[in-house]
């Protein structure tokens, strides 16, 4: 019987080895991912016992604290989140409440809370030396100057809903990201569950949707700003040789079923066969509608995709809603797509990306918010390296499109001359207006769109602005972009 007993002992040994292996798996390997589960009440309780890392806006070269942890008053050693500028940075930071997190607070939670594996060695040292646990500091690419200017401009714009995104075209660093109306994240930082419930109930039932991050999560028709893509496709496919090549611009463009496409206010586009650059600064719908049909829906879609449209996987590291430009086969729909109407839907971030790609000589850099992450001992555990996302056009095509965009603000007949010309702005801005029709039979006010970059000759900033119901793009959206550019470049 002894052989059987020995074998059975080995079997028991195997059982114990299995148990030991499994607790190693749970307590050592899976511990970080278990700590991140939303229902983990222990980690949840602990999160207010130590100092969570700060979020700083470092886009201007300084270190502006936009989220930090402070000892709560009378909370014997518990920390509370504090957002010095409140709603200005809300779409970026998000909030860190007792029950949930949004924005950077959520996307960079591992770093901020100190559970990131890269911080483990540091945590171990703190544990041994008895120092309190600290989270890492997350530095953002956000420029406080641009962000403040964008927020002020939107907030003083008659209460319209809207969003502004600014990008450094050469790196993809996001300089400003504003959504209006927004919320005050300090209200969510309360440690009282009842208060928090009141706050979230109020914000969620607000009809103006303050919790919606319009810069990333809402899409709008790009309107005429999409003509940047249509022109890029035309130049790249050599259907149009250059900015001065004339293209047909009829007063009315029949698109089947007895429908016709007309220009804004039924205006006449030049001599009916103007150079494309003139059609561009005048923003003629018939010219670009006809050009779109000539290019085909598939080609339009191809170039839209190259500019970053139709990408549901973009993370900056906040997830970004996919901008949509469908492949149209019907000529009527293709004409509408070419002028950014009908099914076209883009985020304000995408508006900024259109300009950023042109500004950077045809190479679109991956947009990103996080510049670096520093461990509590100030050692750098992450530093962003700019990477190209795509190459929608060649440098030659980019310079052709730039030339056209400059005329939008510089030519006296350009759609944005009145609001963004160099003597008003103090800097040469290359841009494109858009006025997207909205609602059934255009019953609602138009959405105003402006995408641009500056300085035109040596681009430092690309801006996308959408003002919902703002009316004419040049009038409502362009001045906001100008203010952001002026603040960032310190013009005037």
């Amino acid at each position, binding site marked *: 019987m002894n052989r059987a007993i020995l074998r059975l002992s080995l079997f028991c040994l195997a*059982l114990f080895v299995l148990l030991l292996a499994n607790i190693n798996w749970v307590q050592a390997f899976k511990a970080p991912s278990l700590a991140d589960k939303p229902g983990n009440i222990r980690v949840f309780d602990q999160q207010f016992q130590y100092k969570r890392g700060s979020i700083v806006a470092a886009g201007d070269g300084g270190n502006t604290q936009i989220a930090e942890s402070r000892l709560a008053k009378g909370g014997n050693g518990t920390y509370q989140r504090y957002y010095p500028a409140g709603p200005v940075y809300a779409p970026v930071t998000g909030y860190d409440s007792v029950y949930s997190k949004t924005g950077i607070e959520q996307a960079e939670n591992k770093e901020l809370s100190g559970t990131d594996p890269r911080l483990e060695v540091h945590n171990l040292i703190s544990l041994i030396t008895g120092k309190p646990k600290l989270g890492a500091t997350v530095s953002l690419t956000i420029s406080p100057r641009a962000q403040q200017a964008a927020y002020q401009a939107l907030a003083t714009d008659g209460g319209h809903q809207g969003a502004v995104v600014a990008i450094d075209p050469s790196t993809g660093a996001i300089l400003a990201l504003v959504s209006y109306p927004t919320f005050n994240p300090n209200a969510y930082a309360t440690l009282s569950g009842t208060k928090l419930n009141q706050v979230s109930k109020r914000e969620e039932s607000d009809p103006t949707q303050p919790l919606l991050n319009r810069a990333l999560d809402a899409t709008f028709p790009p309107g005429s700003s999409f003509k940047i893509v249509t022109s890029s496709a035309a130049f790249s496919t050599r259907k149009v040789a250059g900015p001065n090549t004339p293209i047909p611009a009829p007063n009315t463009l029949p698109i089947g079923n007895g429908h016709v496409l007309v220009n804004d206010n039924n205006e006449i586009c030049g001599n009916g066969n103007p150079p494309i650059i003139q059609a561009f600064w005048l923003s003629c719908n018939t010219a670009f509608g006809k050009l779109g049909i000539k290019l085909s829906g598939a080609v339009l879609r191809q170039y839209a995709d190259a500019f970053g449209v139709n990408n549901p996987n973009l993370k900056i590291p906040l997830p970004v809603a996919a901008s949509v430009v469908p492949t149209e086969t019907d000529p009527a729909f293709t004409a509408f797509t070419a002028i950014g109407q009908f099914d076209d839907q883009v985020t304000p971030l995408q508006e900024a990306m259109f300009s950023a790609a042109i500004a950077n000589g045809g190479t679109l850099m991956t947009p990103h918010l996080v510049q670096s992450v520093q461990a509590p001992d100030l050692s750098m555990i992450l530093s962003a390296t700019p990477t190209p996302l795509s190459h929608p056009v060649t440098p030659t095509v980019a310079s052709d499109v730039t030339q056209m965009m400059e005329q939008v603000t510089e030519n006296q007949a350009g759609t944005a001359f009145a609001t963004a010309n160099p003597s008003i702005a103090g800097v040469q801005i290359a841009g494109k207006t858009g006025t997207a029709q909205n609602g059934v039979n255009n019953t609602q006010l138009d959405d105003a769109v402006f995408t641009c970059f500056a300085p035109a000759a040596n681009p430092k900033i690309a801006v996308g602005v959408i003002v919902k119901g703002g009316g004419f793009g040049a009038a409502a959206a362009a001045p906001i972009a100008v203010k952001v550019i002026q603040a960032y470049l310190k013009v005037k």
Partner: protein
Amino acid sequence: MTGYPAAVGAPPVSAEPVPMPRGRRRTELLMLAFAVLVVALAYAFVGLGLNGKVSPGVLEYCLGFAVLMLLAHLAVRRFAPWADPLMLPLAALLNGLGVVMIYRLQESGRNGNPGNMISTLSASAAVTQLVWTALGVVGFILVLAVIRETRVLQRYTYTLGAAGLALLAIPALLPTSMSSIQGAKVWIIVGGFEIQPGEFAKLALAVFFAGYLVAKRDVLALAGRRFLGIDLPRARDLGPVLIAWGASLLILVFETDIGQSALFFGLFVGMIYIATQRTSWLLIGFLLFLGGAYLASTLFSHVGARFTAWLHPFAAANVFCNPATQTHCVPSYQLVQGLYGMSFGGIFGTGLGHGQPFWTPLAQSDFIITAFGEELGLTGLMAMLLLFGLLVQRGMRAAVAVKDPFAKLLAGGLSFVLALQVFVIVGGVTDLIPLTGITTPFLSQGGSSLIASWALIALLMRVSDAARKPAPQPIQDEGMTQVVRAG
């Protein structure tokens, strides 16, 4: 019987006087003192962790515990002087740590609020557990004192078999109000006392199986047909294993207790394997168990739901499912909280009194292992599992060393069922296997389990005493025999 270690084989033939094997009782006392010291320190640390000062009554608690263990040691000296010196200290350490953890949970209260008691944990739970420990030690001493030789037990093979089955069956036959706690119908509740008869049935059945198998092992080992290189037993010999299988299935159906049924069936299959050395019995047992488990999981919603909770513990639908309104529902909330606790403790643990094991429902009984994992960390929990492993190994060692086949089977079976029980509950709460609520030997709150575990250790020590006892010295030798010649 082959494969004896040389140490216990035939004594070497030599003229030298045979060296007397030592009982090693002093080693036992020393290690027992160490175990008591560890428990005392753990007890003091709970107070430091919770309130920043050493727990009140540390002296009384630890003195009481030390006296109990000393009594057990003295009983071993008296009744089983040759027994294994490691078993008692191991049991003492585990038992003591269990009491400490129950004290810790009782002190921190519901949701970590000391003024608010956990509904399943009274304010004197630790004292009660210490009283159960005293009863356990009394049982331990009684078993050693009454059963001076394992042969005594062999006489009661069938009596104990019947008693074991009766103990198992009673909860199933009693009305729910007298037998069910939190859905497990495995109790006898009389006048506020709760007895879990299955814990004792386990011991009685182990004795029964040992006696039965010693008598029948020759028949059971007879080979029938050979199939795929394995000698299958004869069909008519399958009877006993089928009966055991049926009985364990019945426990499953009527007492909704998968853990116990797995334990009994495992015990039987393990012992039949030791008795016959036929791998085919293991295979048959394993297949029958898998078949039974599959059948049960499809026929009984509560079994199937346990599988679902095991495979997807973090799915919200499983975490918060409500057995009152949903069928097929075993909430994984408890399991998930236990896993959170263990991961919260990480490698080194939070330290006693610094974690939050009170979030896990029933952390003082089924889930006590996760509480240790949280506060003592991976390192501490591994050490505790090794304590169990050592206990099993010492039992198996006694089984190998003892000569009497009945004692051999008994010790092998008891050691195996101990290992199995630890595996089923620890594997269950760490999501290695589907969770079934059985007690953790020595650690869990509750008297039945503790007393039965102490009795189990007493039986193992009885066997190891028999194994290590030197053979009686011959009174005469040949040289002294006088040859009387007929004149």
